């Protein structure tokens, strides 16, 4: 049946992934042979030195948000009789598969109190969402693996495969048996657990947060779309605002709308502020009036005013789709100077397609494509380039009120990849890029997101 192929393909994929994990703890043979399944440990007996059972494991406490790459286990929550007690990690002799041996015969019964950075692994992490940074996917932890590393017990890996779920449904005998071939290294994981515990935990950036920053914006956008509400807000807070804003630009409009609505207004405003103006305007357009005002009020006045001006243009016109990020040059500047200006704008490189040359009144003289600039000599003056370009006629421009379909036709006719938008006085106010036009012309793209089927 279908289940069979489905199990196989999952494991096959995970096996392919393991190749990259060489330098990690789970790649070491000693660690892999001593893996202890958390799901199998819960409910298992706790024995004292004499081998007598004194209680049962309820949960495992680990410091998830510390500086260590692998979260150390700080203790166990154990049920003794009807009470729940906390056993610090230093009282543990050894954690076996499915049972725990204590170092001393004495049992000091203390209530468990949560300390900053700690989580209950079974309650807050197992069966909850995780971001798998290497595989760029959102999954649920089917099992967690503990292993002794140096003198401590640490959380080394997580299992997200379906066969492991089936194993946990089976009898207890099979539950304790680890399946190391499907373990993903904990360093590649970004967990979310604070929301499930009482009170705010102190979150510190860990190695995996660094890994999150290595993800491409489009991948991050996928992850954000896939996470639950609380989790995606946490993920946003883990990212630098600039990186988060890049990811937001890649999200589906409907998902982005939901995300901004859910976020605290101050944080949402910060993110929108970081987005490219044209993307920010698109996002703001989808919100209602009062929500939009909430965000705009929280931005710096200049930025808010700028966005308000853009919002005033109707959506399907050149003004509504243009980016206001313009690089302008004067005739007396040299090509080398213009290149330096461009270099300073590296973070906006996807938005810059050409350089608008303006006269002293700010009126447009010509539009120099990046190619022409690239092949020009360093010492050449912009005015010389302008003179040479004049033989091809004046640059094609549109007005902010021009309809996008009209702008698309102009773009095709002129055989260029962007058009300048100019006001009544012929001063450039923005630029329409070919990809913005494509966005409006192409049918909806995106993955088959089932939730949207429902509506």
């Amino acid at each position, binding site marked *: 049946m279908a289940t069979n192929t489905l199990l196989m393909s999952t494991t096959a994929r995970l096996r392919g992934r393991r190749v990259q994990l060489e330098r990690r703890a789970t790649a070491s043979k000693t660690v892999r042979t001593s893996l202890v399944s958390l799901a199998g440990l819960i409910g298992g007996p706790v024995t004292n030195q004499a081998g007598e059972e004194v209680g049962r494991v309820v949960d495992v406490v680990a410091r998830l948000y510390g500086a260590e790459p692998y979260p150390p286990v700080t203790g166990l929550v154990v049920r003794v009789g009807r009470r729940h007690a906390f056993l610090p990690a230093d009282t543990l002799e050894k954690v076996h598969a499915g049972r725990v041996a204590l170092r001393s015969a004495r049992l000091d019964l203390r209530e468990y109190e949560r300390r900053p950075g700690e989580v209950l692994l079974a309650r807050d992490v197992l069966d909850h969402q995780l971001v798998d940074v290497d595989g760029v996917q959102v999954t649920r*932890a089917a099992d967690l693996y503990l292993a002794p590393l140096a003198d401590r017990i640490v959380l080394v890996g997580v299992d997200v495969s379906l066969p492991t779920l089936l194993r946990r449904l089976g009898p207890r005998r099979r539950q304790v048996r680890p399946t190391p071939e499907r373990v993903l290294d904990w360093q590649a994981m970004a967990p979310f657990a604070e929301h499930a515990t009482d009170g705010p935990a102190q979150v510190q950036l860990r190695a995996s947060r660094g890994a999150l920053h290595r993800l491409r914006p489009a991948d991050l956008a996928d992850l954000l779309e896939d*996470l639950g*509400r609380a989790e995606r807000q946490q993920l946003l807070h883990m990212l630098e605002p600039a990186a988060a804003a890049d990811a937001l630009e890649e999200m589906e409009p409907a998902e982005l709308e939901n995300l901004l609505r859910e976020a605290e207004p101050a944080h949402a405003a910060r993110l929108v502020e970081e987005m490219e103006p044209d993307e920010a305007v698109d996002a703001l357009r989808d919100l209602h009036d009062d929500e939009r005002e909430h965000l705009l009020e929280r931005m710096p006045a200049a930025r808010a005013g700028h966005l308000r001006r853009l919002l005033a243009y109707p959506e399907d016109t050149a003004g509504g789709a243009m980016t206001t990020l313009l690089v302008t040059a004067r005739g007396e500047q040299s090509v080398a100077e213009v290149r330096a200006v461009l270099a300073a704008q590296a973070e906006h490189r996807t938005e810059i397609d050409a350089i608008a040359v303006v006269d002293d009144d700010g009126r447009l003289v010509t539009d120099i494509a990046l190619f022409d600039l690239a092949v020009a000599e360093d010492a050449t003056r912009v005015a010389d380039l302008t003179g040479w370009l004049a033989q091809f006629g004046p640059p094609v421009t549109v007005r902010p009120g021009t309809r996008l379909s009209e702008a698309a036709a102009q773009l095709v006719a002129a055989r260029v990849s962007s058009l300048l938008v100019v006001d009544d006085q012929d001063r450039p106010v923005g630029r329409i890029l070919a990809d913005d036009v494509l966005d409006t012309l192409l049918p909806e793209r995106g*993955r088959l997101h089932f939730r949207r089927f*429902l*509506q």
Partner: protein
Amino acid sequence: MTRDLDTTAPLAPETAAVPATRRRGFGRLAVIFAIAGPGLVAANAGNDAAGIATYASAGSQFTYGTLFFMVLVTIALVMVQEMAVRLGAHTGKGLGALIREQFSLRLTALAVFCLLLANTGLVVSEFAGIGAAFELLGVPKWAVIPPAAILLWSLVLFGSYRWAERIFLIMSLAFFAYPIAMILGHPQWGEVGKHLLVPHMEPSKDFILLAVALIGTTVSPYMQFYAAAGVVDRGAKPEDYRLIRLDAVLGAVFACIISLTIIIATAAVIGGTGPLNSAAQAAEALKPVAGQNAELLFALGLIGASALAGAVVPLSASYAIGEAAGVERSVSRSFRDAPLFLGLFTAQIVLGAVVAMTPVDVIQLLIGTQVLQGLISPIVLVYLLVLTNRRALLGTAANGPRYRIAATAVVVGVACMSTILLVQTVLGWFGLG
């Protein structure tokens, strides 16, 4: 590609979540329409093939006798849908995800199994409905069901499902003939009023069987999963909850009013003639409206409603299960990327079509699937009740003491009906019924 779907065809009353958030300068009228609109549309889809068969059978077998019971079911539906959308709005998670996070894995597996079983039953009934409709038009069902299954499957996976969806939706509007048929059929209004207000139950086995089927078809397990997912997908926040609740309640009440008109219309025309035997008989209830064309109208509506639900029901089950398994997010078009999701979807459609092809009495099959729903629904309701009672999950939005008693009463009531039916059936096997 799929984003545009949100303008069309919500299949359950509550998907209309946050109607006012869609308002853009159309003012008050638009708000009212946005609230009433989706609820109106939802009423169609809730009343799918099996629903029509069950309500029509209630009318023909017990005339107006089940009306009071339907009022009770309406109250139950309102409460259940309210709980589902409250969970969605306050946690931002679907029911499948919540169950996985809040219950043990074994209990999650039980919930998932129940949902899958109930939904496969529903898919069977949708294909049976398509088969029955074509038989009314003179086409044998074995010639229709396999192509219909393949068509639905490929429309969802490859085609532009939203266009098909619109066509099905328009076809299913044929069932709006029922309220007119009810009025033209001159039911005894005095009797109708009496039965709506005065409690009336019959201890007979037939009545209990039909009562469980009525519960099953009205409070289907998939609707709660669907309701929560719909709310989550709109990004509804706790602040929007009042509007969401209003919409859920209005949608549920409206769906039940349509169900009542079907019962009354059928009762007025063929009431008291015993159990329903065929789709043709059910179509007679539409004669006051369509005369000779009643069968055609009925068939049209049946095809639309069945095809609509035939795609959404397996999709929503696959999604809820994917969510519980933790692979909800890798939903894409290829089997390689989403084997669980697409595998379950395909399996349900195949199984549904195969069972619907078996040569059994269509009406009995349709009602049978609803009885199955009715038996499973209390199990799913228990999960819903436990989740909404949890303060750790919902905080101040958790059920208050009074609401908790009322909701528990609803669940216990539904469970009692199912248990009585089960006991009766088992006793029947031993010749004691």
